[in-house]
C-alpha cells in the first residue's frame, strides 16, 4: 500500500494508450451488444474473465481524475465538482436519448412481429402497456433495458466522484483503501441499487466503483508508484500465468468435453463469476491484462503515432459520443439482422460499417473541436471536460 502522502502531479502530456484502449473497448462493446454476430468472437470476453466494460470503466476513472483532478487543484473543489456534475447530467441526457430510440424499436417490433412460437417471449413487450410507469422508472434509472446499464453506472460513479476526488488528492492511500473496503462490504452485505420491475442493477455501482477509483488513483500518480511493481519480471510472470489460466477456463465454456478437466473443487470455488458485483476473478484478470499491456506497450511506443491505430485512438478520445453511437448502432444492426435474417456475411458487413461510422463520427467531432479552437493539440490553458484530449 502506498504511503498517504499527497501524490505527485501527473504528467501533463496525454497518454495515447488510454485513448487507444478505450477506443478498442468501445468497438468491443459495440460488437458484444449485437447478440447474433460472428464478429464478436474477436472480442476479449471470449478469451478471459474480464471484458471491454472493465477497460472502459478503468480508463473513464483515469481520465476523470486526470481532467477534474487538475481542475480541483487549480480552481478548487466547487468548480471541479460543478463540472463533474455537469458531465453526469450530459451522460444522463445521452442515456435518456438512447432509451427513446430503444422504445421506438421495441414499439415497432411489438406492432409488426407476431409468431405463436414466441407467445411467451413476446410478453417482454408488455411494459409498453404501462408507459406511465415504464417511462418514469427509466427517468429515475430504475428501468434499464438490456445493454443500457453502463451509462447509469457511469452517472452514479460521477455523482459520487467529487468527495472521492478530494480524498484522492489529499489522502490517496486512504481513498483507495476506502474504495476497497466498500467493495468488500458490498460483497458481504449485498449492497446494490434496486431495479424495475424487480431485481437490482446489472452493474452494481458499489462494486464497480473500485475499478473507477483505482483508475483515478493511477491517474493521480499511483501509476508512477506502481512502476516498480509493473516492471518486475515476477509480476509479469504471474500476470501471464493468470491470463493463460483464464483463457483455458473460458475454453471449457465453449468446448464442452474440456469441462471435465476442471476439477470440481475449482469450479465450486470459482463459479459463478459474477459480473454484477465485479467478481474478484474479473478484477484480477483486468489487472493482469493491464500489467502485461503496460509492460509491452510503453507510453512512448512509436506505434501510437501510426495511422493504423489512429481510428481507435480517435474513438477513444470522444468516448461518450462514440459509446452512445455504438449502443445505437448495435440496436440498429441487431434490428437489420432480425428483419432480414442476416447470416454471417451480413453480420460482418454490419460490424465493419458500424465501426466505420464510429470512426467517421469521431473524426467529425475532432474536426468540430478544431474549428471551435478546442482541439487537444491546441494549447488551451484550462482543460475542458469535453476536450478531446481529456474527456472523462
Amino acid at each position, binding site marked *: 500500500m502506498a504511503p498517504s502522502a499527497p501524490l505527485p502531479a501527473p504528467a501533463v502530456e496525454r497518454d495515447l494508450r488510454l485513448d487507444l484502449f478505450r477506443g478498442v473497448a468501445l468497438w468491443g462493446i459495440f460488437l458484444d451488444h449485437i447478440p447474433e454476430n460472428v464478429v464478436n468472437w474477436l472480442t476479449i470476453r471470449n478469451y478471459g474473465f474480464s471484458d471491454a466494460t472493465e477497460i472502459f470503466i478503468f480508463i473513464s476513472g483515469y481520465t476523470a481524475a486526470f481532467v477534474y483532478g487538475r481542475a480541483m487543484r487549480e480552481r478548487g473543489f466547487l468548480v471541479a465538482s460543478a463540472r463533474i456534475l455537469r458531465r453526469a447530467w450530459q451522460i444522463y441526457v445521452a442515456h435518456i436519448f438512447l432509451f427513446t430510440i430503444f422504445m421506438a424499436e421495441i414499439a415497432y417490433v411489438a406492432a409488426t412481429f407476431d*409468431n405463436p412460437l414466441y*407467445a*411467451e417471449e*413476446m410478453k417482454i413487450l408488455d411494459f409498453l402497456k404501462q408507459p406511465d410507469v415504464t417511462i418514469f422508472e427509466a427517468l429515475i434509472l430504475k428501468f434499464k433495458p438490456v445493454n443500457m446499464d453502463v451509462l447509469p453506472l457511469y452517472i452514479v460513479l460521477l455523482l459520487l466522484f467529487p468527495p472521492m476526488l478530494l480524498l484522492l488528492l489529499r489522502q490517496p492511500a486512504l481513498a483507495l483503501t476506502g474504495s476497497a473496503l466498500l467493495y468488500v462490504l458490498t460483497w458481504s452485505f449485498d449492497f446494490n441499487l434496486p431495479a424495475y420491475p424487480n431485481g437490482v442493477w446489472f452493474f452494481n455501482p458499489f462494486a464497480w466503483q473500485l475499478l473507477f477509483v483505482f483508475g483515478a488513483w493511477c491517474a493521480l500518480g499511483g501509476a508512477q508508484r506502481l512502476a516498480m511493481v509493473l516492471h518486475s519480471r515476477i509480476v509479469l510472470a504471474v500476470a501471464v500465468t493468470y491470463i493463460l489460466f483464464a483463457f483455458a477456463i473460458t475454453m471449457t465454456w465453449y468446448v464442452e468435453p474440456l469441462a471435465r478437466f476442471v476439477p470440481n473443487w475449482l469450479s465450486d470455488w470459482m463459479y459463478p463469476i459474477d459480473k*454484477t458485483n465485479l467478481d474478484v476473478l474479473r478484477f484480477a484478470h483486468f489487472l493482469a491484462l493491464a500489467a502485461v499491456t503496460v509492460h509491452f506497450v510503453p507510453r512512448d511506443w512509436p506505434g501510437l503515432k501510426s495511422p493504423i491505430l489512429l481510428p481507435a485512438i480517435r474513438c477513444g478520445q470522444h468516448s461518450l459520443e462514440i459509446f452512445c453511437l455504438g449502443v445505437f448502432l448495435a440496436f440498429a444492426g441487431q434490428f437489420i439482422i*432480425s428483419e432480414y435474417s442476416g447470416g454471417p456475411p451480413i453480420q460482418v458487413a454490419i460490424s465493419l460499417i458500424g465501426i466505420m461510422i464510429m470512426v467517421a463520427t469521431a473524426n467529425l467531432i475532432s474536426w468540430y473541436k478544431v474549428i471551435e479552437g478546442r482541439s487537444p493539440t491546441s494549447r488551451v490553458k484550462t482543460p475542458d471536460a469535453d476536450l478531446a484530449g481529456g474527456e472523462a
Partner: protein
Amino acid sequence: MTLLLTILAAVALFDSAVAAVPEPSCVVPQSFLSSDTELTRALNEVKARQRLDISVVGTGSSALPGPDGARYAYPAQLEKALQKDLPGITVKVTVHVQPRATAADLAAGMAKVLADDKPALVIWQTGTADAMNSVEPEGFHTSLDDGVGAVEGGNADVILMNMQYSPHTESMMDVSGYADIMRFVAQQHNALLFDRLGIMRSWSDDGTFDLYSATKNYDMARRVHECIGRALASQIISASHLDAVRMQTTR
C-alpha cells in the same frame, strides 16, 4: 435375414433419429445430444416395469397457444416419438405448464409434481421468465439447485431445458447469462441439459427454420415443437441406453 435388416434399419433410424423422418427435416448436430450423463432411473423403470413416466415442468414455451396447442406442443410430440421408438413400452408424459413462472416458482412446486406423477424422469424447462424479469443470477442458481435437488431426492432423473432461441427479443433480454448458469448447474448435478437455445439457433443458422419470420400461422410453431419433441426423445433414448432395451424388446 429380415430380422437383421430390421435391426440394421432400427440402428440407422436411431443414429439419425431426427433426420431420417422426411417431414419435417430438422437435423440436430450430434454434439447437442451426446453426453456422458446417464439416465439410470429412467432405464431402470423401463427395465423393471416396461413403462416410462415423464413429467414436463415448464412455462409458456412448453405449450403452444390455440385450441389444439397441447396436442402439437413438444411434450405431446415427445410422447409420440418415444412410443414409436420404444414399442412395447408404455410412455406417459404429464405436462405442468405455469405461464410466466420463474425457476423459483417451479422449484417450489416440484415436490408436488413428484408426489402426484411419480415420474422416472422430469424435464424441467425454465430460464425464460427469469431472463424476462431479470431475476438475480445468484437467486436463479439457487432455485435451480433446489429444484434439481428435489427431483434427485424424489428418485427421478432430470433434464434441464433452456430457453427458446428468439431472435426478435434477443436485444431485449439477456438469455445467455441464464443459459450459462443452467449449463453449470446441470454439470454440477451430473444432470442432462437439453440445449434448446443452441439447437434452435443452429436451425436458424442452417436455414431449417426462419425464426425471424412474422406469422399468425401455427404451422411453423408446430413443426418446431415436433422437432424439439423428437430431438428430446433421441437424447433420452441415447442417455438411458434405451436403444439396447429396444433391441431386446423388438427381437
